[in-house]
């Protein structure tokens, strides 16, 4: 029930921002649409149902808000590095594309997805896949395609630490 209410209010905020009209007719249309969408898809936005995977939504928001500036800064630095390589006369000498793998300690699906997206957003590295150990004994394995040696050495490193601090449960 809580997830339905949360979904409804997120939808309604989005509606109000998108429509920009505050008269009764448009607002009641919005409430109607949001109720319908919430009814059909309330389990899409908050898919984690077990209590151990959930944590307080406020902590998630604060965590992501603290993480975003770091991510944007990383995107900026990495973009400048790639721009330097691209514009360098010996570009082919400087790149060394290869695939490498590492284990992650992240456990929540949301933090793993955030980490994979962050890796892909920072230029020079693309997440190819996250492999789940069939036996469930080892942690999940990231396969990453890196443009240069330096880009590969930076992972998992600080970015994983920060995501763990932002999104992982405190006891884990």
């Amino acid at each position, binding site marked *: 029930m809580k997830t339905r209410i949360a979904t409804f209010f997120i939808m309604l905020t989005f509606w109000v921002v998108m429509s920009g009209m505050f008269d009764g007719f448009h607002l009641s249309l919005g409430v109607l649409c949001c109720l319908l969408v919430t009814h059909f898809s309330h389990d899409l936005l908050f898919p984690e149902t077990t209590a151990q995977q959930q944590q307080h939504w406020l902590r998630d928001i604060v965590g992501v808000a603290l993480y975003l500036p770091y991510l944007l800064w990383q995107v900026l630095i990495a*973009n400048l590095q790639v721009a330097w390589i691209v514009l360098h006369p010996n570009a082919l000498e400087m790149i060394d*594309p290869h695939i490498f793998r590492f284990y992650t300690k992240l456990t929540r699906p949301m933090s793993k997805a955030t980490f994979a997206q962050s890796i892909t*957003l920072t230029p020079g590295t693309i997440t190819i896949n996250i492999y789940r150990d069939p036996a469930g004994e080892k942690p999940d394995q990231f396969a990453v395609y890196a443009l240069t040696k330096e880009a590969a050495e930076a992972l998992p490193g600080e970015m994983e630490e920060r995501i763990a601090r932002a999104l992982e449960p405190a006891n884990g």
Partner: protein
Amino acid sequence: MTTAAIIFILAGLFFFFVGVVGILRFPDFYTRLHAAGKSDSLAAVLVIIGVALYNLQEINLGNILVSIKIILIAVFIYVASPTATHALTKGALVVGVEPWEKEKKK
């Protein structure tokens, strides 16, 4: 405000330019994806911030709402662009496109 907007848009154009040069210079599909999908992540956002600032020359509720919508485009790019890049890379690997290597080690 206009000056700031122009600076942001020019910076964005510079990174788009780098992306295009990267696509032309890099040797194979995967490295080109690096150049294409990545320079976009910063360039598009810089251009979008520039446009949003330019829109705010007269600050009233309508203009602020429009600027929020423009910024929302950037948010969706940040969600969608890595997903697309990841899907392309994985798809190419599954089909068996050979990655370019500096020197053959085997």
